[in-house]
């Protein structure tokens, strides 16, 4: 029995949500008490916004891999499709310029459509073969985006993507809270926009989990043949999983591109990104929304926030410089030793070692992830 007072406390998910939502206020508080630079917290807040956007992408991937058990290795392609739909619909060099909100909708629906296009012919493939087809699809999309320079401007990317234009009444309300309408100067606008959309996605997925569709996804994951015998329309449920998964990835892509004001280099939407997103949801716990969010914050937070920070600490502490100096004094005529030291003492060079070890150890000792859904735990530990 839990002590009775705990039932008056909000659940810790709600606390975590509040903590993230209050982050800008916390920064403002620190700024007013301590004499730090006025930009303090902005960089961090902007990176936190990136994590929120990636969380939407991971939730999308979780629909296919976690709920339905379809090993999808090409989620970055749908992210990239969302990015480019947004780019084409909003930049100056195209006649559309529909603005953020329409492009958000179009990126979601467009990516979902591509999800259906990939899903329809691959319905009868299973397991590893499906994985390799989605992987191949991801590569084809990446190469196509890069090579269709007349449309996508190749590696230069489409830019500038204009920031969202708030309706007048909303801009007035935002003004009351001290927000300027300048998206490039005030990270909080994007931060709250992403948080808001993430919250909506989480609520939708929570409902979907318990709907008829969500239950048929789980049934397919556990035993496809048995599910079809029990009257689950397997092709339709699988297609829906593909479409929802791709649509969420497209949504995240639209947010990402608008925040960056650029579609960036198509090579950014490659297999590596898909794999890292897969690592996030596996680390956190398949088929679990809390787990997915935790996985994104741990893994990508480590990649984008913690590891650059440690790099700059090592840089500032002078360890690196003195090691390189020492190496040069030992072998003055060759830079080989000095280069080796510089490589070994750069923390971000160890990033993939840490990711890899985390995955291997995780699979060995806790294959269901950090915050697993109870069903996955049952399935993996029977």
């Amino acid at each position, binding site marked *: 029995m839990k002590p009775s007072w705990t039932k008056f406390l909000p659940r810790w998910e709600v606390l975590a949500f509040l903590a993230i939502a209050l982050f800008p206020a916390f920064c403002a508080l620190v700024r007013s008490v301590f004499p730090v630079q006025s930009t303090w917290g902005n960089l961090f807040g902007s990176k936190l916004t990136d994590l929120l956007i990636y969380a939407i992408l991971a939730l999308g991937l979780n629909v296919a891999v976690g709920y339905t058990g379809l*090993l999808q290795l090409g989620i970055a392609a749908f992210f990239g499709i969302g990015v480019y739909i947004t780019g084409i619909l909003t930049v100056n060099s195209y006649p559309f310029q529909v603005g953020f909100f329409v492009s958000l909708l179009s990126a979601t629906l467009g990516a979902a459509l591509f999800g259906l296009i990939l899903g329809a*012919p*691959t319905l*009868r*493939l299973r*397991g*590893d*073969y499906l*994985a*390799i*087809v989605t*992987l*191949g*699809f991801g*590569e*084809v999309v990446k*190469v*196509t985006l*890069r*090579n269709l320079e007349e449309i996508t401007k190749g590696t230069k990317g489409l830019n500038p993507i204009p920031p969202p234009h708030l309706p007048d009444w909303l801009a007035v309300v935002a003004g009351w809270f001290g927000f300027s309408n300048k998206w490039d100067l005030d990270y909080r606008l994007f931060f709250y926009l992403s948080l808001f959309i993430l919250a909506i996605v989480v609520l939708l997925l929570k409902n979907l989990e318990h709907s008829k569709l969500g239950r048929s996804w789980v049934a397919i994951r556990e035993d496809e*043949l048995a599910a079809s015998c029990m009257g689950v329309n397997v092709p339709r449920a699988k297609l829906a999983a593909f479409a929802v998964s791709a649509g969420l990835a497209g949504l995240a892509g639209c947010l990402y591109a608008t925040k960056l004001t650029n579609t960036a280099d198509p090579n950014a939407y490659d*297999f590596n990104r898909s*794999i890292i997103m*897969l*690592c996030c949801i*596996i680390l956190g716990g398949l088929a679990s929304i809390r787990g997915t969010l935790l996985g994104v914050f741990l893994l990508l937070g480590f990649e984008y926030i913690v590891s650059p920070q440690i790099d700059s600490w090592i840089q500032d502490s002078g360890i690196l410089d003195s090691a390189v100096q020492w190496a040069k004094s030992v072998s003055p005529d060759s830079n080989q030793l000095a*280069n080796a030291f510089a*490589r*070994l003492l750069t923390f971000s*060079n*160890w*990033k*993939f*070692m840490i*990711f*890899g*070890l*985390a*995955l*291997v150890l*995780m*699979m*060995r000792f806790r*294959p269901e992830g950090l915050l697993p859904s109870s069903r996955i735990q049952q*399935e*993996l530990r029977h």
Partner: protein
Amino acid sequence: MLPLLAVADTAPDWFTFFLQQCINGLTYGALIALIALGYTMVYGIIGLINFAHGDLFMLGTFLALTLISAFGLDTPDASSGAIAVGLLAIFPIAAVFCGALNLAVDRIVYKPLRRAPKLAPLVSAIGVSFIFQNIGLLWKGPADLSVPSLVPRTDFFSDPTLEFTVKDLFLTLTVLPIMFGLTLLVKYTRLGKSMRAVSQNPTAAQLMGIHVERVIGNTFAMGGALAGFASVIYALYINTVGFQIGYINGLYAFTAAVLGGIGNIPGAVLGGLVIGLVRSLGAAYVGARWATAIIFGILIVILIFRPSGLLGERTREKV
């Protein structure tokens, strides 16, 4: 060879161009096939897509590069006899290194997961791939490195539009015996027989007195050794290595294995040759930047219409 030479010297240009692309494609394809064999053998025996295989191959190329400079083969005063002896030594060293590494990874990482659901070893393999890439990065740094050109590029054809160099011959002469030997080994030796038995049904094989774990270990060691051979050939043939080459070559090799029907040894060789041909013809007639897209496009189409690959057997689903 002689009739081919005669034809080549009188043929029109478009034909020699086509022939040239086929030669390039088949030689590169043979290399890919060598890596693909490692994927397909491991998949055949434990049903694991060994994502780390491409990166194992990458570590092999790094070892080859290190040994070439350690033996002093890259210095201008190295005689051709010394180069030949050095290369002969590098091949077995790289093969043993990669084989032992692959075996060690199997014992440490995959073996405890034999009874786990399929996703667990797959994710572990992705993790091992990350670790290998990181080792490569720390070993040689992020920049591409060039390997000295030790095998001469003397051309066999007098026609300037067509070339088949000593290098191509060297590759063909190394790859063919390896494949031939492997096929014989799997078909006729006791080890090969037990490998086939384990891949058909591990439990039944164990009941027949086969030491299943030892057979799996041998498979990993052999697959790794093939990747080691492939890595030395790659270093000498392509002359540029970097810590990310494992990714794209591993992907091509894996595609080749799937294309031929994963788990099927002749299928992997056929798949490798098809991939090599498609890549080289696609690069020549459509454009080099589309080659990857064409390879994966064809893969998708083939898998949709023949989900178990070109030579793979269809398995009926059982309840």
